[in-house]
């Protein structure tokens, strides 16, 4: 309890408050602007982060992530153009409301829902994180290996993109993580006698390439060229009746978001879909959905914020990032010399509670930004993306150079940028690759340590209760998509157009 209160003392230091504000502002901004997502933004800013105090840095990066969830709503509602993937479903009813002249109401309800969902999630996070961390303190190498393996698999199979492609990307990420000196035998692997590769690939550089440069190049082709003229925003405060309609949806969205957010690979996108589907299913008037139902905005927007918050739990308590943005936070922590895991709460309570409690404050800031100040953000939509592109490009190149004052790093980043761009062109998501790369060393070291403990007997993984359970879950998660695909094919023998469309989404 004391540590929890000390956390507020940490956040209320003016410097940390400032970084919290900067974080949520950047988050809102990139949420509003289509193009760069939160993971790419966090990747691009990693070099800047290294120069600041760890607590402030993590507070800022966290703010970018949950701030983006708020910002993504604005373009969904006003332009029918989701700023973030997690706001795609909001488009249906949000834009319908905007056409009826109720854009303000939609934004208002979304902001209130977002705030409620996030706050609900933070409270549960504050209560459950210490329990999970305490439980995980007993984990040995076998448990960690099993957990990391499950994480990589879940991220690949339930994230976006085709599961086989995602698994290939993840495996290549694991392979990339082995480049350089083997920590057990000191042998060099895949370094081709290059001095620069002897210590392995720097994941900040890899992430900046795959996410940052890859996305910048991809956007150049995508041509989000012209600025859009958003619908006018009036009366942001929803009426009492509208709030009463939205309240149950907000409640259910909070719960759905919290639980799906904890799952690796789950997170904001999936929970917004699930929350919308739930509302439509239990509604007495499902035909209103898609034509401006206020619940259709409230539920997904609440859920994506709740999920964004709860996805911090596996990272802060187990050291397993649940999605691409959390992988960037994981990378940032490692760069700052902090190893995320169950011991984090004990070793760095200031950091743990500082970050968790900064989310309470960050969400209050976001509520203020997205209710009274929303008109200012709407104006940002008029800035042409072409003007921002060279600025992000320069931040990326100059930023990566400053990490080690090395031009070699720039070339490595460019190489991974090309890879990221080509991956997107042929339908591979770079997310699983980065995540697996980040987890690669942890996974390999723990597998090998466990093998040493078990004296070379791999059945040891299965006979220990916790690692055995996790691996059983792994099997279920691995086999489920296959079973489902077979069942699906039996029901519909010809792969029709809808399934193909689903593939695009996944």
């Amino acid at each position, binding site marked *: 309890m004391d540590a929890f209160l000390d956390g507020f003392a940490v956040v209320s230091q003016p410097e940390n408050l400032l970084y919290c504000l900067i974080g949520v502002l950047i988050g809102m901004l990139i949420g509003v602007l289509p193009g760069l997502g939160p993971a790419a933004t966090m990747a691009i800013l990693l070099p800047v982060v290294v120069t600041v105090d760890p607590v402030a840095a993590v507070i800022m990066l966290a703010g970018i992530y949950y701030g983006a969830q708020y910002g993504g709503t604005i373009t969904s509602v006003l332009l029918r153009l989701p700023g973030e993937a997690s706001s795609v479903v909001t488009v249906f009813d949000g834009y319908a409301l905007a056409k009826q002249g109720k854009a303000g109401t939609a934004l208002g309800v979304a902001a209130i829902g977002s705030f409620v969902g996030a706050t609900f999630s933070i409270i549960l996070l504050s209560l459950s994180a210490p329990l999970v961390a305490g439980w995980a303190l007993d984990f040995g190498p076998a448990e960690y290996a099993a957990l990391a393996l499950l994480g990589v698999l879940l991220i690949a199979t339930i994230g976006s993109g085709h599961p086989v492609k995602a698994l290939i990307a993840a495996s290549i990420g694991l392979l990339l993580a082995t480049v350089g000196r083997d920590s057990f035998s000191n042998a060099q692997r895949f370094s081709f006698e290059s001095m620069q590769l002897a210590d392995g690939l720097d994941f900040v550089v890899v992430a900046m390439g795959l996410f940052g440069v890859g996305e910048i190049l991809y956007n150049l082709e995508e041509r989000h060229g012209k600025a859009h003229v958003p619908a006018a925003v009036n009366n942001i405060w929803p009426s009492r009746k509208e709030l009463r309609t939205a309240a149950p949806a907000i409640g259910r969205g909070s719960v759905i978001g919290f639980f799906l957010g904890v799952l690796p690979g789950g997170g904001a996108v999936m929970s917004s879909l699930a929350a919308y589907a739930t509302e439509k299913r239990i509604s007495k008037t499902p035909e209103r959905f898609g034509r401006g139902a206020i619940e259709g905005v409230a539920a997904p927007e609440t859920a994506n914020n709740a999920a964004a918050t709860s996805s911090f739990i596996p990272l802060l308590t187990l050291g397993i990032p649940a999605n691409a943005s959390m992988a960037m936070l994981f990378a940032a922590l490692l760069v700052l010399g902090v190893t995320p895991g169950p011991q984090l709460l004990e070793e760095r309570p200031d950091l743990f509670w500082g970050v968790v409690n900064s989310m309470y404050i960050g969400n209050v800031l976001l509520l203020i930004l997205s209710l009274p100040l929303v008109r200012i953000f709407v104006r940002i939509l008029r800035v042409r993306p072409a003007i921002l592109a060279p600025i992000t490009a320069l931040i990326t190149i100059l930023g990566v150079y400053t990490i080690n004052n090395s031009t070699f790093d*720039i070339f490595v980043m460019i190489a991974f940028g090309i890879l990221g761009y080509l991956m997107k062109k042929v*339908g591979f998501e770079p997310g699983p690759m980065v995540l697996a790369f980040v987890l690669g060393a942890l996974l390999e070291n723990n597998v090998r340590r466990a093998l040493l403990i078990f004296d070379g007997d791999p059945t040891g993984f299965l006979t220990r209760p916790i690692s055995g359970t996790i691996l059983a879950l792994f099997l279920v998660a691995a086999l489920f998509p296959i079973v489902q695909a077979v069942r699906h094919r039996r029901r519909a023998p010809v792969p029709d157009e809808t399934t193909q469309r689903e593939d695009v989404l996944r």
Partner: protein
Amino acid sequence: MSDEHSRAGGGQGDILAELEAEVAHELEEQRPPAGGPAYQVVAGLVTLAVGVLGAVLAHGYGLGSLRRPGPGLWPFVISAVIIALSVVLLVVGRRLTDSEQFSRSSVLPLVGLATFVGLAFLLPVIGFEIPALLLCVVWLRFLGGESWRSTAAVSVGTVAAFYALFLYGLGIPLPHLF
């Protein structure tokens, strides 16, 4: 989503599937046409090659035994997984529609890439100011279609801001000419 499907099977699963299709359709409108089987096959062959290369090199590093894993064992196992998955992709993935055709506008990223490489080469030689300015001009005027006036204003402003931010604000020793 997974338990969503298993729990309901009917009602909710259908709504969710419908919704996913609708969302995918929504996104599809903004996407260039799919690349077709050739793209999928080439992608599968490239990942297959990565797997084979990885396996051969890892084998050379020494596999050891499970009791004493050599440095090559882990990368060898991963490479084997890549090979297996690539074969699966080559078999089942030919008809996927998640790729995007290269088109005339694919030249734009190529130009952008060239400016990246140019900046990387010039940075240690003549400092960041001139290459950064050139990059801005290319991106704004030629890739972004801005007018010369706004190109000039934004380029100079951006480079000046970076100069102030890196050299004075953050105190980072970036190679500079002036």
